[in-house]
C-alpha cells in the first residue's frame, strides 16, 4: 500500500528500487563513509555576517540557570553540587490520520515531552556522599492535540506527567567509598555492559513508552531505578560487584491509548486478573547480581550473573469463563524467575596499510547473555489450558542474545560501527507462539539485526554540526523472514556549551503488518530535541 505523507508524496529517484527510503539510508551511510577520504577543503571564517556573529557570541555564554541558580547555591553550600537540565523532545508523525491495524491513528504528535532534571550531591566527608536526582516530566501530546486515539492518561497518569515519589525521585542513595571498596545504598540505577543496546544491561527495568523508538542514548532517563545495596570490591585492575535488590520494579510498556501502543495488538476479551508482583517483604522474592571485571591489556572482559524476575509478566491462563456463551480466557499476569549469565569483552587494535586510509584503528566489543527458564506461550498447551487442562499454556526455554560490534575510527573524526546482534531461542518449535525475554520474536527461532552506524562532525562548523545515520534491518527465521528496517538520521548542532539541538528523522519500512518494525510503517516521524544543561 502506498504511503501518504503530510508533506505530499515523495518521489523516488529514477531507477531506485521499490523501497526507496531504505535505499537512500544506505546511500547516506556510503556518502558519510566516503566523504572523509577526500582531503577536506579549508573553510575560512564565518559565513553569515556580523549579526550571526553577535548572536553566536551571546549564545555561547548564555547560561541563566547556571549563573543565577547553580552557582549561588553552590557558593552558599560549598559541600553541595547542583546541576540539571531541561530537555524538550517533540516528534511529529508524517502520515495522515488513518486506521492502522487495530488503532485509530488520529494524532500527529508522538511526543511533546518536557523533562527537568535536578541533580544534587552532598559531600559529608571525603568518603561519604548523598546523591539525589529528580525528574519532572510532562508530555503534552494528550493536551495539545485533539485525538480520540490517545487516552493513555485514563489508564496511567504517568503517561502524561510524573506524579508520584516513585517516578519523580529518580535516584536517592548514600555512598561510601575507600580505595578498594564502594558501597551505595538506596534508590539507584546500574548499567552493565560495554556496548550500545541492552544485552547485559538488565538490572533496572525501563520505561518503554517509546517502544521501538527507544534509543540507547535515552536509557539514562528511561531506566526505572530500584532500591538496592550495591557493593564493589576493587583489586588491581579488576573488580567484583555484588547487588542485592529487595525492591522489584517492572518494565513500563506503552499503555493502550498512548502514541506508541502497537497497532498489531488486537482488542482482547480476556478477563485479566490483578498482576502478582514480587514482594519486597518476602526475602525469597529479592534479586541478586554479581559482576566480575578483569583487565588484561589489551583485552578487558567480564562475567555477570543475575538471579532476577522477568521485568515483564507472562499472562498465564488460569481458567476460562463461559458466562455469556463464549469462551473467555482468564489470564493471570505473573513475573517469573530467570537466571541470567553474561559475558562482555573488548579489544583494541589497528589495521595498517588499508587502501586510501592507511592505519585504521578499531575496537571489537562482544557481549552475550544466556537466560534460562524463559516462558514461551505454546499453542498446544494454550488450547489445553483453555479446555481446562492441567497447564498454564507456557513452556520453559533458554534464550541467548548476543552482539559483536566493530568500531572503526575513519578519517576526519568519523566513526563507523557495524554491530550484528543475534536473538535466539533454544529448543524452538513451531508451536511457540509468543516471544520471550532474550529470544526471537514470535514465530521465529532467531532474529538478526546487523546494525550499521556512521557519524561524523563537519569541519567547517568546527565540529558543532554532526550528522549520523543508523540503520537497523530486522531479519528472522523461520517465520517472519523480514521484520522491517528502522532508519534514523540525526543532525545535531551545538548552540553553546549549554545548549544543544537535534533534528531526527526516523522511518520504519518493510516487514509485515504484524512484524516488529513493519507494524509501525505509518509511524515515520521527524522530531527535534532541545537541551539546556546547567
Amino acid at each position, binding site marked *: 500500500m502506498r504511503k501518504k505523507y503530510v508533506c505530499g508524496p515523495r518521489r523516488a529517484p529514477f531507477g531506485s528500487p521499490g523501497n526507496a527510503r531504505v535505499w537512500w539510508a544506505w546511500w547516506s551511510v556510503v556518502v558519510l563513509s566516503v566523504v572523509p577520504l577526500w582531503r577536506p577543503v579549508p573553510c575560512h571564517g564565518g559565513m553569515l555576517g556580523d549579526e550571526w*556573529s553577535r548572536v553566536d557570541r551571546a549564545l555561547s555564554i548564555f547560561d541563566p540557570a547556571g549563573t543565577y541558580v547553580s552557582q549561588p547555591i553552590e557558593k552558599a553550600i560549598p559541600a553541595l553540587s547542583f546541576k540539571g537540565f531541561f530537555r524538550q523532545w517533540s516528534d511529529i508523525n508524517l502520515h495522515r490520520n488513518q486506521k492502522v491495524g487495530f488503532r485509530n491513528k488520529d494524532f500527529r504528535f508522538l511526543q511533546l515531552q518536557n523533562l527537568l532534571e535536578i541533580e544534587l550531591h552532598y559531600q559529608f566527608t571525603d568518603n561519604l556522599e548523598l546523591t539525589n536526582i529528580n525528574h519532572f516530566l510532562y508530555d503534552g501530546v494528550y493536551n495539545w492535540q485533539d485525538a480520540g486515539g490517545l487516552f493513555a492518561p485514563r489508564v496511567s497518569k504517568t503517561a502524561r506527567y510524573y506524579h508520584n515519589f516513585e517516578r519523580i525521585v529518580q535516584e536517592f542513595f548514600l555512598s561510601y567509598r575507600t580505595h*578498594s571498596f564502594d558501597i551505595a545504598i538506596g534508590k539507584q*540505577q546500574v548499567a552493565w555492559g560495554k556496548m550500545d543496546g541492552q544485552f547485559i544491561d538488565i538490572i533496572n527495568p525501563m520505561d518503554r513508552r517509546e517502544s521501538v523508538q527507544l534509543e540507547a*542514548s535515552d536509557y539514562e532517563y528511561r531506566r526505572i531505578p530500584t532500591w538496592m545495596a550495591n557493593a564493589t570490591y576493587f583489586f588491581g585492575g*579488576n573488580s567484583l560487584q555484588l547487588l542485592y535488590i529487595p525492591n522489584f520494579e517492572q518494565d513500563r510498556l506503552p499503555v493502550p491509548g498512548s502514541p506508541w501502543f502497537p497497532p498489531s495488538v488486537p482488542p482482547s476479551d480476556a478477563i485479566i486478573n490483578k498482576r502478582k508482583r514480587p514482594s519486597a517483604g518476602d526475602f525469597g522474592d529479592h534479586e541478586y547480581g554479581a559482576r566480575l571485571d578483569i583487565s588484561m591489556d589489551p583485552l*578487558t572482559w567480564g562475567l555477570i550473573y543475575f538471579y532476577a524476575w522477568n521485568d515483564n509478566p507472562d499472562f498465564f491462563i488460569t481458567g476460562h469463563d463461559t458466562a455469556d456463551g463464549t469462551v473467555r480466557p482468564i489470564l493471570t499476569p505473573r513475573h517469573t524467575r530467570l537466571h541470567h549469565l553474561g559475558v562482555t569483552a*573488548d579489544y583494541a587494535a589497528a589495521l595498517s596499510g588499508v587502501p586510501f586510509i592507511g592505519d585504521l584503528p578499531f575496537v571489537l566489543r562482544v557481549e552475550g547473555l544466556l537466560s534460562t527458564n524463559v516462558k514461551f506461550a505454546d499453542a498446544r498447551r494454550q488450547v489445553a489450558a483453555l479446555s481446562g487442562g492441567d497447564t498454564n499454556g507456557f513452556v520453559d526455554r533458554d534464550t541467548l542474545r548476543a552482539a559483536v560490534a566493530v568500531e572503526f575510527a575513519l578519517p576526519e573524526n568519523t566513526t563507523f560501527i557495524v554491530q550484528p546482534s543475534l536473538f535466539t531461542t533454544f529448543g524452538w518449535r513451531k508451536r511457540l507462539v509468543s516471544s520471550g525475554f532474550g529470544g526471537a520474536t514470535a514465530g521465529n527461532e532467531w532474529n538478526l539485526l546487523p546494525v550499521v552506524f556512521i557519524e561524523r562532525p563537519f569541519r567547517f562548523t568546527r565540529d558543532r554540526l554532526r550528522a549520523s545515520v543508523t540503520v537497523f534491518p530486522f531479519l528472522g527465521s523461520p517465520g517472519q523472514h523480514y521484520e522491517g528496517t528502522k532508519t534514523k538520521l540525526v543532525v545535531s548542532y551545538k548552540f553553546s556549551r549549554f545548549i544543544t539541538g537535534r533534528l531526527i528523522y526516523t522511518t520504519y519500512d518493510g516487514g509485515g503488518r504484524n512484524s516488529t518494525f513493519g507494524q509501525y510503517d505509518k509511524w515515520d516521524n521527524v522530531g527535534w530535541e532541545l537541551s539546556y*544543561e546547567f
Partner: protein
Amino acid sequence: MTRRVTVSWIVSLSAWWGVVCLGLLLMWPRLLLAESRSWKYLSELSEEERRDIDLRTDTPRDTTLPYLPAEPYPFTPPYTAEEMGFRSMEFPHIARWNFTMIEDFGSVMPTGYLSTGKTIVLSIYPEPEGLIGYFNSKPGEVYTRWLSQDTYPPENLGNQMLMLQHRTDQTATTKTDMFAYSPVLRRVRRFPQPRRQDRFPDNPMTFDDFLGRDAWEFTWRIIGTDVLSETVRFPKTRPTITLMTGDGTLKDTPVQSLKMMGDEYPYYTPEGGVPCYVVEAKAKPDWLSNYYAPRIIYWLDQHYFYPLRTEQYGADGELVAMETRLAALYNPDLKERGYHNVITIWWNAQLDFLAYGVHDGHRRRQWSEKDKDTYFNPDFMRRVWFPIPMKTQATVRVPEDFFLRPHLYRDKFPEERKIIIAPEVEARVQAQDAAGHLVFTETLANGQPGQ
C-alpha cells in the same frame, strides 16, 4: 720635507670621500636592518654562535636501537639538529612525571563562539621520570597512564577518560589505548585510538599535538637562530589571569609579569627575549608516510631546547597550524628538563580556529601503590569518584578576553616559511593586532571599519 697640496690631489680626495659616503649612505639601512633583525640563518652565524652546534648529520647510532644516537641522552654540546629534536621531546603537552593538575581549556571561532572546559588530570609515569623513562620502556609497552575527569561545562561533568600511552617505534605503532566513561551512558567504553591528525572535539589541537612526536620519525636540520620576545599573547582587555599558587590559593596574576620561560630561567636577553634555535623536522617517509604535517619548524630555546613556538606546514608547503607556549619550571629535580607549559595556544591558520590550554594547580605527586592500583584502571571511572578535587578560575569568560592569535613573523626566515592565509583571516589578524584583542565582526574582516 713638506708635501705640496695640489688642486688635483684635493679633487681626487674629495671624489674618494664622495664614493665612501655614498657607499655608506646606501649600505646604512641594510646595516641597520641586520642589527635590528632578531633572527639569523645558519650561514650568518659567527664562530662563537656556532660553538654549541654540531653540523654532522650522520652521527654514530645506538647499537640496540639504531634510531637513537649513540651518545648517551641527554647529550653534551655541541648538539646536532637531531639531538636538539630529541631534547625537545622532553616537553610534550603532558608532563613526563607523576602529577595532578587541572586544565582549563577553550576555543573560539571567528564569529566569537566561545567554548571552554575544565578537566582534572592525574598522571602516573615510570621511574626515572622524564624522557629517559620513555626510552627505557620497550616498544609496545604502556609507559604512562593519564586519567582525566571533566568538571565543566555541566554537560561534561563526570565525563572521564583513561589513556594508556604506549612506547612506539616503527613496528609498534599503537600510541594509545583509550577508555571513556560518560554519566549519560553509565558505561566505560573502549574507543579506537584517534588518528594522529584528527583534531580533538571543538579544538584545533590534533592528537599528535597533544601526545607529542617522536624525534626519530623525523630528519632534523638547523635553519638558524632567533630571539623570541613574545609567545602567548594576552588581549589588552585582560590585565590579569587567576592562577593557583604553590600553597593552593587562587591569585590574580598580572599578565605582564608572566615570562616566556618562567621566573627561574636564567638566559633571558636584557630585553626579556629568549634566544632560540630554529630547527626543521621533516617526516621520514619510511616512518610517517603521508603524514599530515610533513614539515614542522620549531623554535627551541638555546639552552634547554624547550619548544616555545611550533609551526606545522602541509604537504603543499603552506602553513597549517601554529603552537606557542609559556612555560615554567615545575619539576626542579629534573633541572633543565623539568620545564612544562603553563599556557599553550593552538591556532589552525586554515580554519582560523584558535584554542588555549592552561595547566593550573600543577602538583608533583608520589602515588602510593594503592593509588596506582585504584585510579589508573578503566573500571575506576564508573565509580564517578574525584579523588583529587581541584578548581581553576583561569578560564576565559567572554570571547573578547580570549588570547590573541600568535605572531605571524612574516619577515623571519622568508625562504623557509611559506605563510599563505586567506584574505579574511589576514584581515582578522590585522584587526586583532590593531585592536589588541580579537575582533569578530565580518565587516572588519572584509577590510572595512567594524565595531
